[in-house]
């Protein structure tokens, strides 16, 4: 894919004529191009602003206590261990559900499905990405919380998995399309069955793309709050391993603490936000930087 720019001298006519009309056209051209450039830099400014303020406010609160200590039962102090532990359990479980679903689903669309069903599935995956995440929360609430009358970490993980699956599926599908057909043919010609060919030739070749999709899905799930409000609920105690009970997560912790009219709790929210942002951005930068050459070049 080209970057879409054409290497042609701009506004030859405008410069040749030198008339008043020509000058006006040149001025409009120049000024609008400058405006477009300013808009582009304006777009990039918020990232810098958010990064700066989260770092400035969060760095003081980001210490070992934040990761290792649970919140005090009463009053202020303690840390966000409940949130860290919850995120570290729910996100991997979500990935364990979403990755097989997404990857094999993508295999089906890319390798087996007819054109019509591929389009339907792809379309639904895209629409699912656009469904507001809070509705995913309600959806999972109706069948994993309501019947048991108990908010639980498992429901939270399922809600995150629903969000991750289409992301993994679409990224994987793209990377499978980049696998050269000659590899498939060579493998089949050697008498390798189709399922082996897919697993050890196609998926292995597409592995970098699959990892990209998985990591982007993980980063997205890690930052989601809304789908957890009515599923995992959040918890002030450190919950290790009991998926049948409420669990906390970093975003939930930030949300709850930011709404308290207590400065020390707000500080903890900034610390947790700094930690979350750091992890999410590192994943994104690492993954995107790797696939960058392929996508733009």
């Amino acid at each position, binding site marked *: *894919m080209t970057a879409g720019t054409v290497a042609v001298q701009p506004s030859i006519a405008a410069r040749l004529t030198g008339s008043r009309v020509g000058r006006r056209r040149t001025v409009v051209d120049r000024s609008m191009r400058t405006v477009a450039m300013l808009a582009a830099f304006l777009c990039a400014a918020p990232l810098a602003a958010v990064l700066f303020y989260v770092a400035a406010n969060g760095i003081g609160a980001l210490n070992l206590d934040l990761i290792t200590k649970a919140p005090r039962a009463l009053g202020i102090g303690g840390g966000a261990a409940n949130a860290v532990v919850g995120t570290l359990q729910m996100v991997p479980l979500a990935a364990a559900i979403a990755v097989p679903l997404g990857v094999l689903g993508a295999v089906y669309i890319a390798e*087996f499905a007819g054109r019509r069903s591929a389009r339907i599935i792809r379309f639904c995956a895209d629409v699912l990405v656009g469904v507001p995440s809070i509705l995913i929360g309600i959806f999972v609430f109706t069948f994993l919380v309501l019947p048991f009358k108990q908010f639980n970490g498992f429901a939270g993980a399922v809600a995150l998995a629903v969000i991750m699956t289409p992301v993994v599926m679409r990224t994987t599908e793209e990377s499978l399309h980049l696998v050269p057909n000659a590899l498939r043919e060579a493998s089949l010609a050697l008498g390798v069955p189709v399922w082996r060919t897919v697993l050890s030739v196609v998926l292995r070749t597409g592995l970098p793309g699959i990892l990209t999709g998985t990591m982007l899905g993980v980063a997205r799930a890690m930052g989601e709050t809304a789908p957890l409000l009515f599923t995992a609920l959040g918890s002030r105690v450190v919950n290790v391993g009991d998926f049948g009970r409420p669990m906390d997560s970093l975003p939930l912790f930030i949300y709850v603490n930011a709404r308290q009219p207590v400065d020390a709790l707000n500080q903890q929210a900034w610390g947790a936000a700094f930690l979350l942002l750091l992890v999410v951005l590192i994943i994104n930068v690492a993954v995107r930087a790797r696939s960058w050459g392929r996508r733009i070049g």
Partner: protein
Amino acid sequence: MTTATTAAARFGRAASRVPDLVFRSTSGVLAWTTVAILGLLAILLLLNSGEVLGTFGISFLTGTTWDPIAGIYGALPFIVGTIASSFIAIVLATPIGLLTAIFLAELAPRRVAIPLTFTIELLAAIPSVVFGLWGVFVLGPFLSKTVEAWIVSTLGWIPIFAGPPFGVGLFTAGVILTLMILPTIVAISRDVITAVPDSQREAMLALGATRWEMITKAVLPYARSGIIGAVILGLGRALGETMAVTMVIGNRPQVPQSVFDSSQTIASQIATTFNEASIGLQTSALIGLGLVLLVITMTLNIVARLLVWRVAGPGEAHT
């Protein structure tokens, strides 16, 4: 990428032996699961909101009172809040996003375009709750002292711009949403602009057009439906955005009179009251709100995807 349409059914016929068929049908079932999830989501929301829809019918959408104690549920305040905050976001984000996409696709040299695109993509990766935190403590106070104060002092005589600005309310929510939907609008507009054939540009330049005339008269008309699609996708995101909006909009369940009023969107009303709601009519009413949101966002999404596909092909555009 662009090969998506041609690549279907690579092994379609080759899978005939038993293990292959098992593998094929397993992956098929998993793939159709996505479709099933979407269907199930709609059905469960519909079933669980049956009680409120049965009790209030169409007046659920038009009623202005939301009073759980009296048992009266009218969704209009939240529908207005949702549309108003998203409208502010679209008004601000469309020109900025489109100009940015034009700059990235047509004007910027590669060494500028690549890092800028990267930065804007990272903006999309910031979790919503972090935007909310920043919005409450940094952006809101900043806006109330600068932009909002200025609007109130110059346009305050118009009722919808009446103050006082608190830094919490519709306007702040609209600005936060602007930041959150800009990456979507920029990325997809850039993709569709890039997909415009070079022959369009060359013809325009050969006629003596300036670069800007080429963009406005040849490139943008060609990419128009895709750009509209990008804006609608941004709108869909804004309508359903929950956490950041919940944290800065003020959470007041009444129809707002001014852009500086505290308000409540569908998503933020669900987020703030669902857990305290008693099972029964109140929960049903909140799920009914969710159903309204689902219908709006799904419709917009489907329309937008079709528009983008028309220009860029079905393999593109999934941000």
